[in-house]
């Protein structure tokens, strides 16, 4: 009996100590897990230790989709967090929520609570991706990646290839050599993101009408109407049949695993993917993603930002927003930006962070980190730096659904792209009804 009482006494004392501080609590929900989730917790801890007025409480909700669904459900129940991480495909939905008073835009917040980080401190490409129609930044850029090409240098050396290809044409010239040596020449982990959305950005082509949704609400995607895109998938299918491209299902990890295990020469993944490869794969590099020389005439264009931003949600007290403003300021400092860039491989999102990286000669010691900034920093695009199309998570699903039968040979490339357009058109119309 005594034991039980003392256990209760201990539990109670814990309960009281944790409540006895009256710090203002700020809730931050996120959709990263594993190592990336640990880094988020570390950021919050560092902020909490840096001052003692506010306390940021990070809560992981699973995947990006899970976190978005949880945030929405919480909002509907009147119990939303202050700050939530929402991914690229959800950006259109979040930007549209400013007018409904769900989301507070960054610039509005900065004005009201005097955040010392100007929207112009963020890299233009990243800033524009999360901005509204007037160019005002709404989401706060956070983990910004893009798709990159990983190359296994040992395989290339073994088959006698000296230079990592920069174009698909160069890849085609060496693919058979790699296949003959018993390796998979190419894998990629996300057909909608890498080979659809970023095919268009990489080649400076419009993906939807309404100027990618920046000028008008988009009504259709331009998949089958873009001959370059049709050509690309014809080629992919040809590679698949020749064994130059290996398709390992829809799961990101299943496509990455052969590369990590040294069975594939090239893999297209995210800029933040190399964490798990270090120490497993002895000799790999990160490179800009390939492009068709025949499409761009030798010119390279930047890809879209991937990853996620943090969004400020309405419905809390002024005191709490002041704390959140402090936290945003803290995260936007050059040191924290570079810390996050270094830990995860996501791009540095502030100009201050990039300057700091240059000052300390960061990329000489960490070559893996360089490609993402190089690729996102390319100039000369005439298309917007993103797309504003609603129901995009479902459109990605439609893309997936048609890629498999296309590679199978069940339907032709043209038919598959046509199906994608049809599916997307209906989903875009459905979204337009809610505006």
């Amino acid at each position: 009996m005594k034991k039980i009482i003392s256990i209760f006494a201990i539990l109670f004392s814990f309960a009281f100590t944790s409540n006895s501080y009256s710090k203002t609590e700020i809730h931050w929900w996120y959709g990263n897990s594993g190592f990336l989730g640990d880094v988020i917790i570390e950021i919050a801890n560092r902020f909490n230790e840096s001052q003692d007025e506010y306390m940021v409480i990070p809560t992981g909700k699973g995947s990006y989709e899970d976190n978005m669904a949880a945030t929405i459900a919480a909002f509907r129940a009147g119990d939303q967090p202050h700050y939530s991480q929402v991914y690229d495909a959800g950006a259109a939905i979040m930007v549209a929520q400013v007018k409904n008073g769900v989301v507070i835009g960054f610039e509005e917040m900065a004005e009201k609570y005097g955040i010392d980080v100007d929207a112009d401190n963020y890299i233009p490409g990243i800033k524009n991706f999360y901005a509204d129609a007037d160019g005002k930044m709404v989401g706060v850029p956070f983990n910004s990646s893009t798709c990159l090409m990983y190359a296994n240098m040992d395989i290339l050396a073994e088959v006698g290839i000296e230079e990592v290809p920069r174009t698909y044409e160069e890849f085609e010239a060496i693919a058979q050599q790699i296949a003959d040596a018993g390796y998979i020449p190419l894998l990629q982990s996300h057909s909608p993101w890498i080979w659809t959305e970023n095919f268009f950005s990489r080649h400076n082509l419009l993906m939807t009408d309404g100027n990618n949704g920046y000028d008008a609400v988009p009504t259709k995607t331009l998949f089958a109407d873009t001959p370059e895109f049709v050509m690309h998938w014809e080629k992919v299918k040809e590679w698949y049949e020749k064994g130059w491209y290996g398709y390992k299902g829809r799961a990101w990890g299943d496509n990455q695993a052969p590369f990590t295990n040294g069975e594939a020469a090239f893999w297209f993944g995210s800029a933040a993917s190399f964490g798990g490869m270090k120490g497993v794969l002895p000799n790999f590099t990160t490179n800009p993603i390939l492009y068709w020389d025949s499409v761009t005439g030798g010119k390279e264009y930047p890809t879209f930002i991937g990853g996620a931003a943090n969004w400020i949600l309405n419905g809390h007290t002024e005191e709490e927003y002041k704390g959140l403003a402090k936290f945003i300021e803290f995260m936007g400092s050059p040191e924290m930006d570079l810390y996050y860039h270094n830990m995860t491989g996501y791009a540095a999102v502030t100009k201050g962070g990039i300057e700091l990286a240059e000052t300390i000669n960061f990329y000489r010691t960490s070559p893996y980190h360089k490609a993402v900034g190089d690729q996102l920093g390319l100039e000369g695009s005439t298309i917007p730096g993103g797309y504003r199309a609603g129901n995009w998570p479902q459109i990605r699903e439609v893309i997936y659904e048609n890629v498999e039968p296309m590679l199978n040979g069940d339907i032709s490339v043209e038919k598959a792209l046509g199906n994608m357009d049809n599916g997307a058109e209906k989903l875009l119309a459905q979204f337009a009804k809610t505006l």
Partner: protein
Amino acid sequence: MKKVQFKSSYSQYFFLAPQLLILLIFLYWPIIQTFRDAFTIQDAFGFGSYFAGFDNFKFIFSDPSYYTAFKFTIIYSFVITLITGSIGLLLAVQANSVLHGKNVYKTLLIWPYAIAPAVVGVMANYFFSERFGLLYHLFNNLWGFNWYQDVFDAYIYVVIAGSWKQISANFIFFLAGLQAIQKTVIEASIIDCKSNIRRFWTITFPLLMPTTFFLIIINITYSFFDTFGIIDTTTIGAPGSETKTLVYKAYIDGFKGLDLGSAGAQSIMMMLIVLVITIFQFRYIEGKIHYN
């Protein structure tokens, strides 16, 4: 049937109230909410909502992957019911006639029932992974199995993953059914007929009909609703949308796609399908079953 009538008094409602309240909150209120979602169009956060009539239903019927999900769900529930029922019955008959170590067999065969579908899916993943999956490589050597691309192979994958655990459920109920059959009936039949197989089909199996009927309903409901976790941890609906069940599609559209209107309409369609199946079963099949 005899009708028993009690004198009416209000106290009965008082005692019923807690149970009714639970039903109202956890059953009827969500159903009403689903109906509301199905007939409105709204954005993810619930704004811009307006009455849309049958627009959401038109939308799902214009979606080819809805028909695919429908087709798959029917095939899947039929195959799972057949496989789990027959293997469960076979194992139950065998375990019932075993003389030594009966309890060991029983316990081992019941165990998988305690495993959550999502965990079953993860385990199936190990068997069907291209990297280290035993079954993947066995089948791949036999006929070039590749569930990433081939629809039939993907069916095999999800059917094996989906039936394994459910075989246990069938086993338990069939075994209980077998043990409830009176010894005298079995003994009398042994005198009349020598053939084991014939005796099983003419005496034992008809006496198991109530159990079988019950299990058919349980298995269909299982493959409709409970296999969600299995699909989500195995094929995630691929290739194409060929292995999406109706429930999984509603989940994808509602929770990942954030389109509550479409998900609501799909839920109502599902309710109708289950209603039709249940009515059909109780009207046309149950009438042919003798419980005594």
